[in-house]
């Protein structure tokens, strides 16, 4: 059974139809990159899967581990193992990273039938994960994303992902706003999380992220549909020829 199966998904934001029939199958262990020009619907797809308000599914079906994903609330999806790394991580002033992360982790653990972690075990775990992302432990006592630089915010997203141990990681333009050093650190963090039980969907505009996180499949999204799919070579073609090359071609949606 695939981890995620998207069938003919249509969705709109307010009155505007953005996704116009997406078909995509993701198996555990795979990394899929979704590329496309601005406004093609890449971020919308990630947000629809996470269950954000204001994104209305008008038709189609999404199965997650064989069950109807669209029936679940946002927090239920998160606890079931769907993690969205935000393009613009949100600030929550006055709430420390440590408190936020511990609350989230224990909510997720409780759902999975695991014991809640106490402060000591939590600290030990989070410090180990922070090393991987070259983060200073001082981050734990700062407000969630409060006054963080762009790079710090993105690293913080990957830290949260590492802690919450999802089955499906959705990375929404994680490379945007990152300098090359931060990009490498973030990519290393993601690569360390790759495993046969976990899949990733990377939404990105540029090829450069894929130099560091090598995808198994690349899909080109434009006008709310997947126009073409291929392996990592497709991304390189795009880099050379631009999106015009695919969009200009006789559009045909290819499932994987």
């Amino acid at each position, binding site marked *: 059974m695939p981890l995620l199966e998207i069938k003919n998904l249509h969705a709109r934001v307010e009155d505007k139809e953005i996704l116009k029939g997406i078909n995509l199958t993701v198996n555990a262990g795979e990394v899929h990159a979704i590329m496309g020009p601005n406004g093609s619907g890449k971020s919308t797809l990630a947000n629809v899967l996470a269950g954000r*308000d204001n994104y209305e599914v008008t038709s189609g079906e999404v199965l997650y581990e064989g069950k109807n994903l669209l029936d679940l609330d*946002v927090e239920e999806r998160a606890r079931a193992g769907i993690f969205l790394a935000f393009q613009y991580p*949100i600030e929550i002033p006055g709430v420390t990273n440590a408190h*936020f992360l511990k609350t*989230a982790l224990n909510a997720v653990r409780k759902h999975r039938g695991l014991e809640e972690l106490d402060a000591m075990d939590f600290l030990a775990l989070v410090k180990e994960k922070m090393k991987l992302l070259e983060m200073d432990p001082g981050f734990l006592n700062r407000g969630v994303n409060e006054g963080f630089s762009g790079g710090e915010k993105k690293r913080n997203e990957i830290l*949260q992902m590492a802690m919450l141990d999802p089955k499906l990681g959705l990375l929404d333009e994680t490379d945007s706003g990152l300098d090359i050093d931060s990009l490498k650190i973030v990519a290393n963090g993601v690569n360390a999380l790759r495993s046969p039980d976990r899949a990733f969907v990377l939404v990105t505009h540029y090829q450069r992220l894929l130099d560091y996180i090598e995808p198994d499949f690349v899909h080109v999204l434009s006008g709310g549909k997947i126009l073409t799919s291929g392996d990592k070579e497709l991304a390189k073609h795009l880099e050379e020829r631009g999106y015009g090359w695919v969009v200009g071609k006789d559009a045909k949606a290819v499932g994987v």
Partner: protein
Amino acid sequence: MTETNQALEEITGQEYKYGFVTSIEEDRIPKGLNEDIVRLISAKKNEPPFMLEWRLRAYRHWLTMQEPTWQNVRYPKIDYNDIYYYSAPKQKAKPKSLDEVDPEIRETFNKLGISLAEQERLTGVAVDAVFDSVSVGTTFKGKLKEMGIIFCSFSEAVLEHPDLVKKYLGSVVPYSDNYFATLNSAVFSDGSFVYIPKGVRCPMELSTYFRINASETGQFERTLIVADEGSYVSYLEGCTAPMRDENQLHAAVVELVALGDAQIKYSTVQNWYPGDKEGKGGIYNFVTKRGKCAGENSKISWTQVETGSAITWKYPSCILQGDNSVGEFYSVAVTNNYQQADTGTKMIHIGKNTRSTIVSKGISAGHGQNTYRGLVKINKGAEGARNYSQCDSLLMGDKCGAHTFPYIEIKNSSAQMEHEATTSKIGEDQLFYCKQRGISEEDAVNMIVNGFCKQVFKELPMEFAVEAQKLLSVSLEGSVG
């Protein structure tokens, strides 16, 4: 919360039916207000002549005053002749054990983490004579006495320490101060009195919890705290448990006096009955609280968490008279359903190099209206005065309101003033972010609100801060989504 309060109301209503009527008649004086009533109150309390004269002066002055209308709150006209101004402690039919107390009330207690003994005290369960808080209270009282600290009811102070009362009563809030303070001066029932002698650091938080006869101080409470030179005291007022009271109008007065190098820290958690979801009933809490930093290098710090009452109308203030004295005001005010709050502070800078800090956090939910009103006044002689003000408002939903009225009067050009103000909505984005991490909506709201209030909560004594956080979450339950 509202349901709990309704349940609470039902219970207290029942008590009224059974216990009250037979035993109370003889100890209640007639409704209404006139000189005879004032004399009667004073006589019932065996007060010395100076006290009666003071009450009468206040009453005569009150007759010449008009009820204020400038505040940003709405309520029906109060008939001052339809109020009982004196009644002896009420005899109630007490539940025999907590099992007889409404399960919803107990649920609220449990959410607040209130101990069983405290639950029994609050619900009026009849307990044995050797009740924890009383014996603990007595033990503490002995220890305080050894250090020369006076901590007793106001009535007791009038009888036992008349010179101190005479010297400081009305020295910060004169009997002619304002409509409600003047009314209080004429008819106040009881309250607390604290005196900390020179150079003594009070070794524990003084709170109404440990005061003998703490309950039933009534609707016109009066508190006077005097910290003599070089002394320190931290005083806690109120309780986080839901408080139900038959009296709709509460007009309390609190006066603080800090002499040279003395410090007073006054923390309040107010959770009176706020009225039901439609805005019926609830307490009108019209309070005058003011502290005077009379001596050099003295400091007064007000911290308040206001979640209850239908209407809250109070401005804990500091008169910074001594050179280098410091005034602080940290406030969280919550209005939910149809609650209204008009609260803030006044910082009056008189001495040189006086400093004041104001941090106000207003949270509005439901149809709640929350107003911050503050005055910072720098007098001519206040060389080098400084003020920092920060007023933040958080809105939950789209039917509530937040209003900010900062007033500034500066008569000395060396003053340094800073003012920051923000208004934000609990963002859909913040909620989505929390929920996407697996956190429930309720926990997410609590987390965001507590983060918003953090600057104020960290000023509260530790246990109080923990209780205040829980109280906030109970008060705002179900206000989003």
